[in-house]
Structure formats: C-alpha cells, structure tokens
C-alpha cells in the first residue's frame, strides 16, 4: 500500500494522561520484583555465593533442570504424534480425540497431582484394587517420576495445540509435491512437514518448560525438591535468605527460557495457502494409534475425574467439621477473582491502548513491564509481596488488597494481550472519522472505539477471573488468615490428608477451568474440526 499513509500518528502526540497511567501500572507491576532484588542484595556477596553453591542448593537447580527437560521432551513425544494423528490421518473417532487431547489443560496440575497420589500412592485406590491379585506395592509415585508424569500429562496440550495449528495451516500441496518427487511418507514427514512445524512445536515446548519451572502445586504434592517447593519450604521455616536467593535464581532461569523463546519466534517463516485433500491412511497402524490416544487421554482425564467422583460419592462426613466444605468458600473465590478481573482490566486499558495505537519505545517498555507476571512464578511473586508487605506496606499486609494486587500482577498479561489484540482490530481510521465528524478525542473513544473493543475487554476480564480462581501459591502466601477460598480448601484437605474434602471444590474448579478454556477458544477461533 501507499507509503505515505502514516495512519497511527505514532508517538507525535502521546496522550499524556494515558501515558502517565500506563507508566504507573508498569511501575506498580515491577515493584515486587525490584523489592525481591533489593532483599537479595542485603545478603552479603560471600554469603550468597556460599548459599548458592551449597550442595543442597545445587541439587535443587539440577532437580528443576532435569524436571523441565524430562517434561518438555515427553510433552513433545505426546503432543506431536497426537497432533499429527488428529490432523493428517484417517484416525477413527478423530473428532473425539481432537477435543479429548486438549482437555487436560482444563485440569489444574495440582488437582491432577493430588488425584495421582491418591490413585497410585501407597494404599491408593489402585493398590487396593490390585491387592486381591497379590500386588503388594506399586512403583513409587512420589518424587521425580510422579512430578514428571503429572506435569507431562497436564502440559503436553501446549505442544499439541501449537503443533496442530501449524499442521492445519500447513500447505498440504507441499506433501503432494514431495511425494511426486519420490519421497516416502516417512521421508516426507521428516523433510517437509517436520521443518515446517518445528517453530510451532518449539513455541509450545517453551510454554511447557515455563509452566514446569514455575509450577508450585505438583512438586509440592509429589514431594519433589524443585525450586518452587524448596522456596516455599525455606520460607515457612524462616530460611528467608535461601528462599530469596533461590527465587532470584529461578527468575533468572525463567528469563533465560523467555529469551530462548523470542529467539525461536524470530525464525518463524510464513507459509500456508493451498490445501489438498491428502490424508495419511493408517491401515493396520490404526489399532496402535487408537490405543495410544486412548491411553494418553484416559490417564490424563479419567484417572483424576474417577478419583474426584469416588471421593464425592463416598462423601466426607467421617472427618472433622473444621474441614467441611462451606459455600462461603465459593463466594470468597468469586469475590477476589471478580475484584482481580476488574482491577486488571482497568490497569490493562491504558497499557494496551498505547501499545496498540501509539507504538514507541516508551510504550513498548510499559507493555513489556506488564509481562513480568509471566516471568515471575507465583511462589516468587507471593514471597516478594510478603517481604514488601511486612517491611514496608504493613497497612495492606494480610489484607485482600495485597492479594488482589498479586493476582493483577500475575494475570495482567492476559488482560493486556486480549485487549491489545482488540484495539489492533479497530481500524485507526474509525476514531479519525469520528473526529472529522465533530467528536472530541474522548467522545470518539467512547462512541466508536469502546463499543468495538468491548468483547475483547470482557474476554480478557473473564480470563483473569477464571485463572485467578485456580491460582494456588500466591493465594497460600498472601491470603489474610482465616480467609479461605476453594483453592485454599483443597490445599488444607491435602495437607491434613483428608483427600475426600477436596472433591467438591476440585470439581467446581474443573468446571471453572472448562469455562476459561471456552473463553480462549471463542476468542481465538480455535477450530476443533
């Protein structure tokens, strides 16, 4: 198109109020991280070195690295074949498997871990089931194997979904071309399809790596000493310095992975276009293929659902009243989540608007700052805010304000991302047209831009609401004492060993997660066919 169409008047007149507002948001979001660094700096240099090089600390790093590597690799090994089978082959029941294979995302990994411990742990459901057959003990579920298994089952969908999207947009006439050039199916996959989907698979794998690194619930329940669990344990046993240094180390590793991601993203090459009806015929391989799909989805979906429903059916009347489920937990969850959604939407509005409409280095910086929530694991954020609250902001410590603030930081990226996308979808000529028809800038925003971005605003707010409902580590660290939510209730059931009490809140959370997935699907037009 014409080069003389500088449509958004980039940077020339940054709206002052909006800029100040988004600078304030960026500063507020960065505050806890800076506070953590400050706290870290109070630890003497020599002391820090000796703490970090202690065998126990090194072991934590090695554990986490091994877990990330194993889960990432295993997720690729599950996600890519599932994607290929559902998109490119004549797999029987492929629509069912298409949906089923992405459903594990709905189950928060800590609920999955909880269910797996209950199913496969010592004296678990399976062992009791198998006891009459003379099985004395199952392989150990606690520790590395359990953590790796559960995290893989609940994060492989990231790889599956990105690989699937890439395979679907893949120009299959390229496959036809390769086959006319005398390449076998397998060689075609390796030489043509694989290189095309590699960037997407890598992007998905990095999401898996980030999730694994930052996940708190699974290592905690599996009693595996990854960063997040050790930080939490150290903090609860007054090992503040160790917790701080480990947190900083964890954040550094996260940034490293994020850096890798942006490197890989740059390699993506446009494709797409022609589509032929080429489908790979599985033939006799149908049976193992179906068995594979059934195995993965059963393990990931049926096991936790079965366990939760068993608990639910058995009821939990046999234990102490203090652990009984109360409806007010739902109200508390809904209350803080709604507050977080509203606050995140308000905070995201100026940032997303500037990022979409007035791109400059400054506004880029603000937008990046709000993404700190992605880079800082919840347990680290919780810890930083505890330090901040106890040392500096005692007035808000142990109040809901600080808790909601933590949620906003964690999930602001979701709100900014979805809003920015909807601002970008509004043709910049529309508010300009309103201006030439006599509207002031604010009137133009209200009468034209706002009605058009409203669905995006709502979608972003809904996402924040739903993910806040499921948030575990920051909730545990920052909730006012006596304030219980669904998540807190599940956690106390786990800690006290009365798993049965977790059934109702866990089932409610599954419903909530399913809803949030629907929101994502409707926003991105994710196509199941």
């Amino acid at each position, binding site marked *: *198109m*014409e*080069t*003389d*169409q*500088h449509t958004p*008047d980039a940077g*020339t*007149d940054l709206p002052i109020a909006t800029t100040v507002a988004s600078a304030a948001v960026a500063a507020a979001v960065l505050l806890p991280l800076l506070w953590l660094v400050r706290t870290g700096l109070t630890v003497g240099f020599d002391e820090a070195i000796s703490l970090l090089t202690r065998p126990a600390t090194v072991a934590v790093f090695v554990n986490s690295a091994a877990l990330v590597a194993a889960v990432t690799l295993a997720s690729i090994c599950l996600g890519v074949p599932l994607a290929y089978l559902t998109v490119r082959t004549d797999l029987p029941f492929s629509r069912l498997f298409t949906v089923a294979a992405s459903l594990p995302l709905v189950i928060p990994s800590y609920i999955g871990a909880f269910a797996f411990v209950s199913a496969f742990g010592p004296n678990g459901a399976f062992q009791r089931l198998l006891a009459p057959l003379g099985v004395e003990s199952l392989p150990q579920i606690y520790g590395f194997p359990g953590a790796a298994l559960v995290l893989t089952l609940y994060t492989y969908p990231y790889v599956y979904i990105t690989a699937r999207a890439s395979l679907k947009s893949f120009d299959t006439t390229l496959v036809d071309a390769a086959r006319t050039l005398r390449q076998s199916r397998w060689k075609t996959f390796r030489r043509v399809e694989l290189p095309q989907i590699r960037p997407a698979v890598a992007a998905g794998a990095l999401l898996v790596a980030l999730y694994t690194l930052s996940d708190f619930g699974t290592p905690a329940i599996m009693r595996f000493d990854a960063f997040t669990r050790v930080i939490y344990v150290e903090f609860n046993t007054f090992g503040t310095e160790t917790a701080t240094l480990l947190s900083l180390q964890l954040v550094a590793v996260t940034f490293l992975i994020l850096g890798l991601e942006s490197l890989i993203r740059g390699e993506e090459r446009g494709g797409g276009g022609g589509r032929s009806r080429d489908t790979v015929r599985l033939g006799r391989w149908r049976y193992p293929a179906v068995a594979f799909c059934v195995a993965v989805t059963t393990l990931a979906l049926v096991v936790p659902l079965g366990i939760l429903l068993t608990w639910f059916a058995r009821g939990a009347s046999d234990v102490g009243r203090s652990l009984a489920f109360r409806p007010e937990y739902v109200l508390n969850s809904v209350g803080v989540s709604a507050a977080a959604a509203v606050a995140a939407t308000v905070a995201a509005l100026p940032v997303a608007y500037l990022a979409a409409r007035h791109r400059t280095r400054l506004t880029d910086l603000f937008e990046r700052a709000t993404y700190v929530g992605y880079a800082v694991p919840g347990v680290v954020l919780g810890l930083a805010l505890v330090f901040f609250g106890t040392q500096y902001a005692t007035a808000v410590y142990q109040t809901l304000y600080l808790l909601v603030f933590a949620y906003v930081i964690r999930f602001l990226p979701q709100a900014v991302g979805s809003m920015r996308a909807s601002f970008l979808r509004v*043709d910049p*000529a*529309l508010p*300009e*047209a*309103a*201006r*030439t*028809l*006599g*509207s*002031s800038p604010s009137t133009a925003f209200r*009468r*034209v831009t706002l*009605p*058009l971005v409203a669905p995006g605003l709502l979608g972003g707010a809904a996402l924040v609401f739903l993910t806040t409902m499921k948030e575990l580590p920051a909730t545990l660290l920052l909730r006012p004492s006596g304030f219980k939510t669904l998540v807190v209730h599940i956690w106390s059931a786990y800690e006290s060993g009365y798993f049965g009490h977790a059934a109702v809140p866990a089932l409610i959370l599954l419903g909530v997660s399913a809803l949030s997935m629907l929101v994502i699907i409707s926003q991105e037009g994710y196509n199941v066919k």
Partner: protein
Amino acid sequence: MSNNASLSDSAIDGSDGIDATDAEDGVLELDGLYKRYGDESVIEGLSLSVREGEILTLLGPSGCGKTTTLRLIAGLERPNGGSIRLRGEEVAGAGVHVAPEERGVGVVFQEFALFPHLSAAENVAFGLDDWSADEREARVEELLDLVGLAEQADSHPDELSGGQQQRVALARSLAPEPEILLLDEPFSNLDVDLRVQMREEVRRILKATGVTAVSVTHDQEEALSISDRVAVMSDGQLEQVGDPETVFQHPESRFVAGFLGYASFLAGFVHGDTVETELGSVSRDQIHGLAPEYDRTRIDVLVRPDDLRATPEPRLDADADPNGTVVGRRYLGPTILYEVELDDGTSLQCMHNHDAGIPMDARVRVALAAAHDLSWFPADQRPGDGDGGDGAARGLNGNVVGHPDALDDA
C-alpha cells in the same frame, strides 16, 4: 502559459492563472507546508489554493505525500512548517492547531471507515448530534436519498456492497455541511467496473451539493475524469496545477508528462522555422510556445504513442528508409503498443490498432502523425544532465516515467 526555463517556480505558483492575487478568495489555502516523520521529509514547501465549489484532485505516485497533505488539511496531522487557512481563518500554523472536530472538514476515508456497530442511517447521523432530533432525521433522510440508499437505512456496513458503503461514507461526511470535503483514494477499494460508475456518481453528488472537494489519487484516469482541476505532486512538492486538458496536453515537467499517460521524448535541434529530429523536420509552429531564445539549441519534444505511426519495411514507399527496429510489443486488446528503438538509440512508443500485425524485430519507419501542438523541454534539463533535473528525474531516453504500464520488459 508556456514552457520556460524555470519550471519548478512556475509549478509552485500555479502558472496556469492561479497566482497570489487569485488565491485570496480560495476556500482553502495551503502556504509553504512542511511535514517530516523523523528524518524523512514527506511534504516540502507545498502551497496550494482551492477555489469555492471546485473538485481538485491531488495526483501523484505512491509516497509523494498526497495523503499526508489531506491529513494535514483535516487536522489529523500537524505540519512542521507553513500554514493552512480555511475561509481565511488560520487552522494550522505557528502555534496554531485547530482540532479536526473544530475544522468543519469532511473526510471520505480510503477504506470508508464506516462504524461497523452502527447502521447506515446511524453512521450518517453520527456527526449531527448537535442537531435537533427532527432536523437530524430529515437531514439523514435527505442524504440517503441523495446517494440513493433510502432503502438501506437500517443495514449495517457489513451488509452493504462496496459501492453502497462508499455512498454511505459520502453521505456521512456531507451530512454536517462541511466547509470542504476531502476524499482519500475514494475509488481504490472498488472493483474496476464499479470504479468507473462510481466516479460519475460521486461527481454528480458533489456537484449537486456544491461542496468544495479535494480528492487524492494515484490513478491519472480517475483524476482527469472527476476533477475540475488537477494538482500533480511528486516528492512532497507540487509539479503543476491546472485543468485536466492543460495538464495532460502541456505538462510543465517531464515528470508530469510521464505520469499522465505514456510519454516518449524525441531529441530535436531548433533551426529557423523548423525543428530537426530523427523523424525529420517538424514545423516550429507545431511546437507549443517555443521562444526565440531557444534558436539553435537542443530540445526534447514530447510525443505520445498516438502521435506516432510506425510502418514496417515491406509496406514502405520506395524512397523511404526504415529508421528503427521494433524491440517491444504489448497487446492491450483494442490497441497494440509498440516500442521502437530508433537507429540513434532513442526509444519511442507507438500506439496502433490491434490488427497492425507488425512482428518483433521488424525494421520500421516511424513518422510523426499529430495534428495538435507538441510540448517540449529544453535538452539541458534532461534528468541527470547537470542541473536540469527538477524532480522529473526518472525518464531518460523517453521511457515512460512513473507509468504503471511502462514497457520495461522489452
């Protein structure tokens, strides 16, 4: 009006009769406008006067600054220098910037920018919120009638065809009775068939309302057909302003010559009553306004493809010799455009009927077959010849300048 040595000056003053004194009664005055984006200068000292009730088109290639000019007039951008006056009142200038909503300027955007959440009638009513409900309703009805869309009042933009969307956009911008209407590439979003039809339609509507309009396009045919006057722009400056016939027949720069249709340049030497060229002598009377001081100098004569005829060797009279070779041939349907390289290396284009049937590489004799005056340029102003390049710097050897259909694949 004549070709004189100081082309760039005459272009900016508007040498076809609009000069400083005339400009006083213009609806819109642009005076020495400058606009930069970072280090890139987009508009450089542009001055222009738009008269009451006329349709003026800014014509130029992509990136010449025409859309930026429009946005400066609308107040959507601020100039870095110069001033804009609307009905004598300064709306942009040193320390002055009247917001777009205060200017009373209507804009039809390139992609129409209809509000997708509002119906056609609501779009048209958008700028009328200060009017009383009755007046507003009447005005919306009147405009939808004018553009022939009374039936579609309640349709949303996505239910309207491209042509209907454009009519709504036009109605919406005319509704608040703007002092001046700006149209940004108004037809570029329409199918080719519709484009020609809508040109007539838009001109009819504009003339019916009597509004003063400035339109922007890179399509020379569109500019020549809808405008009362055309202003040709290049590299952020005005090359020439005038009525369509004058600008086409007597371009003041090689750039304008090349941008408006196919143009070839034929080298000549002024000698008494004739001009000697490779195609033979041309009477001096046929060269438009050739001043005495150009005696015994070299000039370039502008020849359009329809001014020339090529005759292939077998059909030549016995006493005539071929003087060139066909090096390019483009079949355009009703006509064929031949590119002929003369024996001295000059490249010319000849338009023939579609049944001319001259093969590639044929030896031909090219002759001048024009009954009208021909324009000319001093040879020392050839682009690349020292100081002569005046922004029209791209068309050596008579190759078409800036024309999308240039025979560059010959």
